[in-house]
């Protein structure tokens, strides 16, 4: 940990108004997108990545981290006001937040959600700052073999982000891996599955693919199931929580932030799981667990600090190993690559300044979120009321122009539409989309490092088992796979239970 450099990076972020502005724009955009049901943080980052083309790395990454932090908090606004979580991570916030809103305490709940998000986000970001250099230090010794093993480990995560069906999750993963083989073969340069098109030589362009899968697909399902936009009636007269509320929830915030960071650091487990685990823990350790579900401020504090802490946690494997912790960090990884930076241990060696700027940006983004959230809560509450008839065409244009912008190539726009259709159909039949994203990133990493290892060994497979860390990672991948299968059913059961409680609470 280089404190001098950290201090210097804070200067870079806070004294350069371009970067500061980028963070504030990112946070505002993130909260807005997070607050809108149907638009997730993943979609927000995917949609706004094109806004970073041509901007310097520090500024671009600062904005994207702002969106990430803001999006996690934004989900709670609609969860509290209209019982619809703006993002999956805010699903658990509905349990206590909405009953509070119904009692006329929407302002109090929103203020706590903001404060808890800020505290959680801050704790997560600090843990990330101190822990990831250490992890990266270990990973610096890696050769091709270890990188191959690392990619395998990252891919073993697919099961834990599989949603309802493990089989379909794995199928999505294989589909994504196959997509990643399109283009020139990394070793021999032989063109694979390009159908004679030069546009596919480097594989399907990442951002257009991403926008198609995560934005356009979502738009199609929104259009298919157009509902009535809810009007917000709640009066919001409070921007920050009272001292008494903070005191009651402090313990829960601390505990949930830790849980959130740990869950976030496990590749594949995202904000929704972090929030539900923390909620269950807050309920278990409470002196009055029977009151949970009726609108308890501690519940809001637990879920919101956990999902925001999760962001910091998910950044640890991304930065230090180059393995994304969840879908949003997978998108962020793409954004890093566009900027010419490959996350992973080498980033610490070659671009240490960038890494520390990321640390500083993440911490500043949390402060920005607190300010923007407190000042703008009334505005964000109004945003939820924007009619879908107006929102959908605007997002269509953003998606299509965004995919065109990078290479100024109409082919990329068709690619976006194609992936939009594929994503829509897959989602409709419960094939999860996140494994595709993970596979697109880790596929080339696995293949090129395996093949390079083979070049080094002259085709001798034993090289894969010649290095202890690589063997360790492969064993870990197998163990993780087995544990995920076992855990899948348990988590599924817990989530259904929590949703049942939510449904009962709502109907009562």
């Amino acid at each position, binding site marked *: 940990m280089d404190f001098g450099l950290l201090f210097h990076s804070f200067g870079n972020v806070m004294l350069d108004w371009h970067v500061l502005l980028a963070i504030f724009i990112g946070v505002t955009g993130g909260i807005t997108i997070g607050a809108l049901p149907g638009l997730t943080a993943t979609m927000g980052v995917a949609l706004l990545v*094109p*806004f970073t*083309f*041509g*901007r310097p790395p520090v500024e671009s990454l600062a904005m994207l981290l702002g969106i990430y932090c803001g999006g996690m908090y934004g989900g709670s606004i609609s969860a509290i006001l209209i019982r619809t979580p703006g993002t999956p991570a805010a699903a658990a916030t509905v349990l206590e937040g909405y009953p509070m809103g119904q009692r006329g305490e929407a302002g109090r709940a929103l203020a706590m959600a903001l404060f808890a998000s800020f505290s959680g986000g801050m704790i997560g970001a600090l843990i990330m700052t101190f822990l990831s250099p250490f992890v990266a230090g270990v990973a610096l010794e890696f050769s091709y073999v270890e990188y191959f093993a690392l990619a395998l480990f990252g891919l073993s995560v697919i099961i834990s982000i599989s949603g*309802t*069906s493990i*089989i*379909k999750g*794995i*199928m999505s993963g*294989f*589909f994504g891996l*196959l997509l990643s*083989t399109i283009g020139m*073969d990394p*070793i*021999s340069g*032989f063109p*694979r*599955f390009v159908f004679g098109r030069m546009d596919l030589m480097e594989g399907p362009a990442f951002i257009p693919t991403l926008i198609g899968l995560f934005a*356009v697909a979502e*738009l*199609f*399902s929104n*259009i*298919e199931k*157009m509902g009535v936009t809810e009007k917000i009636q709640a009066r919001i007269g409070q921007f920050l929580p009272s001292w008494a509320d903070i005191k009651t929830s402090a313990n829960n915030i601390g505990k949930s932030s830790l849980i959130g960071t740990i869950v976030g650091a496990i590749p594949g487990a995202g904000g929704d799981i972090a929030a539900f685990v923390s909620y269950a823990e807050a309920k278990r350790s409470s002196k009055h667990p029977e009151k949970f579900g009726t609108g308890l401020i501690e519940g809001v504090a637990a879920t919101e600090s956990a999902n925001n802490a999760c962001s910091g946690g998910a950044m640890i494997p991304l930065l230090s190993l180059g393995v994304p912790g969840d879908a949003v960090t997978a998108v962020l990884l793409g954004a890093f690559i566009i900027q010419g930076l490959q996350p992973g241990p080498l980033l610490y060696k070659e671009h240490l300044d960038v890494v520390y700027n990321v640390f500083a940006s993440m911490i500043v983004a949390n402060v920005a979120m607190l300010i923007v959230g407190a000042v703008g809560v009334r505005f964000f509450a109004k945003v939820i009321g924007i*009619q879908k*008839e*107006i929102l*959908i*065409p*605007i997002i*269509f*244009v*953003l998606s*299509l*122009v965004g995919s*065109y*912008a990078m290479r*100024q190539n*109409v082919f990329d*726009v*068709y690619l976006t*539409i194609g992936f939009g259709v594929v994503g*829509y*159909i897959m989602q*409709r*039949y*419960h*094939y999860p989309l996140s494994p595709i994203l993970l596979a697109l990133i880790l596929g080339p990493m*696995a*293949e090129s490092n*395996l*093949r390079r290892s*083979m*070049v080094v060994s*002259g*085709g001798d497979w034993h090289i894969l088992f010649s290095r202890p860390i690589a063997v360790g990672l492969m064993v870990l991948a197998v163990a993780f796979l087995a544990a995920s299968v076992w855990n899948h059913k348990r988590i599924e059961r817990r989530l259904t239970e929590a949703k049942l409680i939510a449904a009962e609470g709502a109907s009562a």
Partner: protein
Amino acid sequence: MKTADFIGGSAGIALGAYVIFEGSKMPPDLIMKIGPSFFPDILASGLIIFSMILIIYAFIGRAKGEAEAISLKDKGIQRALVSLLAIIAYTALFEPLGYPLATILLVAGVMVLLGKRQPKELAIVSLATTFGIWLIFAKLLKLSMPMGILERLL
């Protein structure tokens, strides 16, 4: 979900078979033993195996979850399909017609499709969106946007 899983599984098998077929035409690597087709072959085999499992599960009644069939009579599906055609047309017209005109048409068109009919609202939203997004991409990010026929007129 049973029929849907059967179709999904068959699509997976077809895709896997295609990849293996294409892979068989790729040149082998004599030194490293694994050539360009090695990775795709393994992945395609994996996809085929899991697609088969999905189909078997569907047959023995272990398909998970509910699924609605895509019916063209459904109003929602019709809307989604028309919006798909609209964005394909937008993409085709993007360069020849130019960003401004194509975008105004797309925004107004999708709004009408989703039930907005007031001319004033259509005009304001489509013009403001087109101008706002142009401002961000063309002026702020300095990326060139095709002006199409407007370029000749201006």
